[in-house]
């Protein structure tokens, strides 16, 4: 298994140093950190919510929270679990907010499907977002962190406040479920439901 420190280089070699300088009010470091981490945070949100607009809102919210909580990062510690633990909370809050809004808007009987990616439509493979949308929330989250954001098991465990074993188990279950969904007939049954979220 890969160590947390080694895997942290996945987002760039100096993100921990940038974070330390950001804590010291270095504007350049803060801007560089935003530029480095925003694309992967955006993918984390978009991969799970299936909506680019929501992902953009959540990205903004995540940075506000990171900014407010920046004193809680301890220099020398891996940064990605810290960032993703905050991002995860943003996603949970957004999910609840969406649930509340949805419950108030029952009049709309059919939920709109996530905006289809034209490039994906032309292919035989189902889109990643559509496929993972059918997974339970905790499996979707673990899978997105592992495969989209390329975090290590250790980092995912820390970001989700669980153990490496639990993360591995969730990932295995997700793979199994995805394999069964990829069986064309089952996936065809799933798609018309608007990909339950």
């Amino acid at each position, binding site marked *: 298994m890969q160590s947390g420190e080694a*895997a942290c280089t996945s987002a760039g070699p100096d993100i921990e140093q940038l974070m330390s300088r950001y804590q010291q009010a270095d504007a350049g470091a*803060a801007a560089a950190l935003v530029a480095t981490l925003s694309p992967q945070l955006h993918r984390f949100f978009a991969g799970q919510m299936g909506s680019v607009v929501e992902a953009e809102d959540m990205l903004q919210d995540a940075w506000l929270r990171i900014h407010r909580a920046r004193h809680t990062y301890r220099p020398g*510690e891996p940064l990605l679990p*810290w960032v993703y633990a*905050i991002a995860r909370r943003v996603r949970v809050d957004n999910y609840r907010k969406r649930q509340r809004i949805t419950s108030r808007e029952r009049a709309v009987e059919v939920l709109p499907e996530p905006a289809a990616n034209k490039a994906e439509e032309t292919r035989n493979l189902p889109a990643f977002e559509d496929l993972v949308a059918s997974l339970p929330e905790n499996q979707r989250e673990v899978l997105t962190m592992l495969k989209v954001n390329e975090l290590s098991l250790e980092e995912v465990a820390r970001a989700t406040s669980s153990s490496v074993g639990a993360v591995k188990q969730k990932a295995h279950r997700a793979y199994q479920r995805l394999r069964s969904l990829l069986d064309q007939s089952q996936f065809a049954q799933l798609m018309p439901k608007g990909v339950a979220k």
Partner: protein
Amino acid sequence: MTCRDIDDLMSSAPGNPVHTPDTVEHLVSCEKCRTLISVLHEGGKLAAPPEGQIKRIQARIVETLKPVRPLAPSRFFLFACAIIFLCIVAIGATPFGMNGWGALSTMQRIAVFTTLAASAVLLAISMIGQMVPGSKYAFAPTALPIGILTALTIVLAATFRPHAEPDFVADGLTCMRNGLTYSIPAALLFWLLVRRGAILYPKLIGAAAGGLGGLAGLSVLEINCSNMNVFHILVWHWGVVLISSAAGALLGAAVEFIERWRSQKLS
């Protein structure tokens, strides 16, 4: 190589590093694995945020940028928790005397106070960990309070015996009131301490702070109260921990609600 091995490989390394001869051989023969890897690979190509949005975020952060001092090491907070806990127990033990301590046998003292100390240390470590996002936990923060309450129940039930008690409710209420008198201030002090961190899950951290306060209250009762009836201890002493934890979780829920309301108002 099996599909399960492919899963192991995919989980243990970031991205999709499936390039060894064995895996390639499996992928050639297994369409499901091949498709799965292709789809997962697509996930890494999801759209990036617009450049304009990144610039807006950068501008907003830079405009409110001030130097901050990183949070003190965990051992500092652990030490602070120990001081609060011991002070509360010492203050609680002074006015009512140590009748309970005197009534306990050596084995009972070891069983009860070792369990209390271990529970308090574990809960304090978990609570301090929750101050920093992405902390590493030996025990899941959601499961720990339940585990501690269960362990306490087992130890207390195994250590004490039932006795006839004519004023079960009246005596019990007195004990519970005494216990809560110390557990509530202790929990509030723990809450003030953890507020220095980033509270991502207020209910959870509230339950931990309340539980730790409850353990302080229970320790006071075990030192003061000479009633050795197992039912008295399980209902009225143990109940202090339960009530404190629940009150802490409620306080956390209230904080969460207020924060949500504020953010809705702002947006």
